[in-house]
């Protein structure tokens, strides 16, 4: 038997049927899901992606900002991840983050601020994960071929594939089940908000500033990346999918409620229109998405309880 066939035969014997049955894409999504919830991607094992991106909050969290493993305060509010596979650029104000694969390194290795704190410890990740035979099997199923090296490039690809599976398209709005007041709100929203919050995910993916630039502000938005004066304070329009459960709002979490967030747009809406828009925004909550077991903390891997 040629070595490659011997290798494949050995793989077939050692990989559990649950892993073998998956196609490569499904295997990557399964691997990415497990990695998303694995705190071994952080310096001291205390934080996973899911520490900040909580499913019941549309994969945002309930805090203004979230401190990292060193307790350094976060700088920006945790964004939700519904339909994030459709987004580019990603995050609040960084046009360099064009793909989920690239962006995965920011929380893991970033230092401004420190989030998961793995800067300088990259070699620790394959060591930690490689100690688990099931992880090795999952990587082999997700990335079949000669290259069985476990590295961050594969990790980021698997995380990205899982994140691309986070599709939210079953809110009352999607099912055309708006109450009369939500319908009024939808009309008001289209008139007053949809120039930026447009499209199926209610974002134009562009960077805007809603108040005069303040060079003394601690967060200069897009300017921090481009260095262009015109970009001071410019922030990418956030998606509004599941917005009712992703508060607090604004890039720094400084708007505690939807009322605050709507009010900051300076639209001078009549109170009944603001209320109707809020009712409409609540119709963007996709309960199936928030409770989909395929997106939650995995309870098994390789057919074994975790």
């Amino acid at each position, binding site marked *: 038997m040629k070595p490659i066939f011997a290798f494949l035969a050995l793989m077939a014997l050692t990989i559990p049927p649950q892993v073998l049955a998956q196609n490569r894409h499904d295997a990557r999504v399964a691997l990415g899901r497990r990695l998303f919830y*694995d705190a071994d991607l952080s310096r001291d*094992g*205390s934080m996973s992606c899911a520490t900040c991106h909580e499913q019941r909050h549309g994969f945002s969290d309930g805090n203004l900002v979230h401190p990292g493993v060193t307790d350094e305060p*976060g700088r920006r509010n945790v964004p939700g991840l519904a339909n994030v596979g459709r987004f580019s650029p990603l995050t609040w104000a960084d046009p360099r983050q064009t793909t989920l694969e690239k962006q995965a390194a920011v929380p893991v290795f970033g230092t401004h601020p420190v989030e998961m704190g793995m800067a300088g410890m990259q070699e620790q990740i394959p060591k930690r994960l490689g100690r688990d035979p099931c992880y090795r099997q999952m990587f082999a199923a997700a990335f079949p071929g000669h290259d069985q090296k476990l590295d961050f490039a594969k990790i980021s690809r698997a995380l990205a594939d899982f994140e691309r599976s986070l599709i939210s398209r079953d809110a009352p709005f999607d099912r055309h089940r708006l109450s009369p007041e939500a319908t009024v709100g939808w009309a008001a929203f289209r008139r007053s908000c949809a120039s930026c919050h447009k499209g199926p995910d209610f974002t134009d993916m562009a960077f805007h500033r809603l108040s005069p630039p303040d060079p003394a502000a601690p967060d200069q938005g897009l300017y921090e990346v481009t260095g262009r004066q015109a970009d001071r304070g410019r922030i990418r329009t956030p998606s509004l999918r599941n917005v009712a459960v992703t508060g607090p709002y604004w890039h720094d979490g400084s708007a505690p409620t939807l009322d605050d967030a709507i009010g900051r747009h300076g639209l001078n809406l009549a109170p009944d229109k603001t209320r109707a828009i809020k009712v409409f925004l609540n119709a963007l909550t996709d309960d199936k998405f928030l409770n989909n077991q395929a997106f939650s903390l995995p309870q098994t891997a390789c057919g074994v309880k975790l």
Partner: protein
Amino acid sequence: MPKNGVIMAGFWAAALALWAGQVWAQTPAAPACAAPVAPSGEYAPWTNPVAIKAGGDPAAAPLLPLGTAARVTLIATPKVKYEVRPEKPGGTVSYGGILILDITKNSSYRIALSSAAWLDVIGKDGALRSTAHGHGPDCTGIRKVVEFPLQPGRYTVQIAANGADEITVMALPSP
């Protein structure tokens, strides 16, 4: 209760109420502190904790006395057998452990931690939902405070996803 106690009780009620409804979420970061501050009042025992070793399973878990701070030695996460899998289980390089809490009076109770570790309180019907969470007095090292309504009985306290092998824990009735 002295006047200061009333004011502080009101403050803590307000501080925790800010986070009511945001159950299970993590707490905000502690402010920058020039020097540590010894907590006073009901948190005064925080600076003089007793040393205990967390259990690796509920049967081996020691009692966490109410109103007494404990410096708890934790166990490597892969060796801990939790009664209920924590929602945020921690990586293999993290630490966790199990304590027992005996409650004799129907009331709301706070559990204070020196880190942002994940905390579960398990009753006879499973993991309880916290009703509020926040942080302790600034610069005291009380990093996270979670509130649970508890009826008389025995509870399992699960600590998970701690970055270090020790943590200070204190359980006390809410004001």
